[in-house]
């Protein structure tokens, strides 16, 4: 817990500067509300915002779990089944070029206005980074270890479970970190396309009414969810990768920047 307390002063300074600019330049609140107004909107609408945050947070977490699980499973399949690697991998590589956001209206058409379309959207944008990172990790297991495992009488399943998967965990972890940071984008884009609930919905509604302070309040909630999710995922991965000696040096966590 060293990062958050240390980030706090800088955050307060930024908020102070924001407040100062709004007051000094007398920016109209429907263009840029001051932080104090945002906090007021946050308190005023806390009940509806809490419900919206729960909806969006649920979509994000569901998308993250689904996308990560499907991604890792696909990567394992690609590594185990040679023909899958031969025929499906090129397609996967090419399909990464498809602008996934453009599919949002289609997903809404298929899954309706409920959370289904948003979870699908989040799953979809998470899926490819996780597959790519996991395939990379599974592919580059240390040949010396694999040789050793063979002389120790390991079958393909034991090799996958005891060697390739743990060895790929750092790569899979990077994939999951990326997934955790893009999952909120998927959920919100899904909500913008068509929804009746959620923070994305709240932002659109507030925007249409020029309730800019409420829009910022919803945005703040979204940021809080995203940061909390990232920190939680980062912690969990740190714990899962306890054996990684170079974590302190190669960490993707912000501690690196604070040294």
């Amino acid at each position, binding site marked *: 817990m060293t990062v958050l307390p240390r980030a706090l002063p800088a955050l307060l300074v930024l908020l102070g500067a924001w407040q100062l600019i709004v007051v000094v330049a007398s920016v109209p609140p429907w263009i840029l509300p001051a932080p104090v107004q945002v906090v007021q909107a946050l308190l005023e609408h806390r009940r509806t915002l809490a419900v919206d945050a729960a909806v969006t947070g649920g979509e994000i977490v569901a998308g993250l779990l689904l996308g990560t699980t499907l991604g890792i499973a696909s990567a394992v399949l690609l590594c185990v089944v040679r023909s899958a690697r031969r025929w499906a991998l090129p397609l996967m590589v090419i399909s990464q070029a498809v602008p996934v956001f453009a599919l949002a209206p289609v997903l809404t058409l298929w899954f309706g206005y409920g959370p289904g379309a948003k979870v699908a959207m989040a799953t979809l944008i998470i899926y490819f980074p996780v597959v790519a990172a996991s395939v990379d990790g599974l592919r580059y297991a*240390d040949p*010396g*270890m694999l*040789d*050793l*495992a*063979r*002389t*120790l*009488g*390991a079958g393909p399943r*034991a*090799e996958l479970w*005891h*060697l390739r998967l*743990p*060895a790929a*965990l750092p790569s899979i972890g990077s994939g999951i970190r990326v997934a955790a940071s893009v999952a909120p984008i998927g959920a919100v884009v899904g909500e913008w396309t068509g929804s009746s609930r959620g923070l994305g919905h709240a932002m659109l509604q507030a925007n249409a009414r020029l309730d800019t302070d409420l829009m910022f309040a919803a945005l703040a909630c979204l940021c809080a969810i995203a940061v909390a999710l990232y920190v939680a995922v980062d912690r969990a991965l740190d714990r899962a990768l*306890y*054996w*990684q*000696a170079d974590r302190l040096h190669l960490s993707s966590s912000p501690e690196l920047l604070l040294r």
Partner: protein
Amino acid sequence: MSVAAPARAPGLVVEAAGLAFAGRAVLHALSVRIEAGRWHALLGRSGSGKSSLLRVLAGLQPLDSGRVGADDGQALPGRIALMAQDDALLPWLSARDNVALGARLRGEPRAAARGRADTLLDRVGLGERGGALPATLSGGQRQRVALARTLFEDRAVVLMDEPFSRLDAITRHELQALAHRLLARRTVLLVTHDPLEALRLADRVSVLADGAVHDTVRIDGAAPRDTRTATVLAHVDALWAALQRT
């Protein structure tokens, strides 16, 4: 529980072994006999084919021509343990679990394996470090764990691919003696590029060049030897000369 060698360690026979990668010959009609229960060193420059021969014997690489086998006529796979230059410890397992890796990979019961692993760690002088992760061990300690893992398998034939080359001089010296003591009466094939190491540990030294055995020298006296004696030094000169001709 004992680490005594299996009752009968077989010798190894390599007959006209041929192997090529992408048209380039790695083993060229290589023939050699490895006597049962002895240390045999394969000495050669990089690219002389010594590591390839080891991989073939370990069953990791099929031959293009010729054959390898045990001189008792039984199959080799399952009777061979491999110890490489890289200790290949799994960084997410403790020293103890690394020693017992074979049991884990074959799905054998864990508890008994751990007890045996602890005994073996004791033998290699790491009895206190069973719970340590490889990253917290020194290079010499890691290679000791790898040695214990080799002993855990209790195989009659041990193939070593420059297992001491990355260690500092003192640690190397200690580990050579330890390995020699613990692997007594097994058939050990030691790949090395260091004539002194070969002469210190092995009873037979074969010089490899261009994928074939150039010459095999018989070294008398009990190993590990003092490498400063006149006979050993004479061998060193001869091996240097042989290596330089290759």
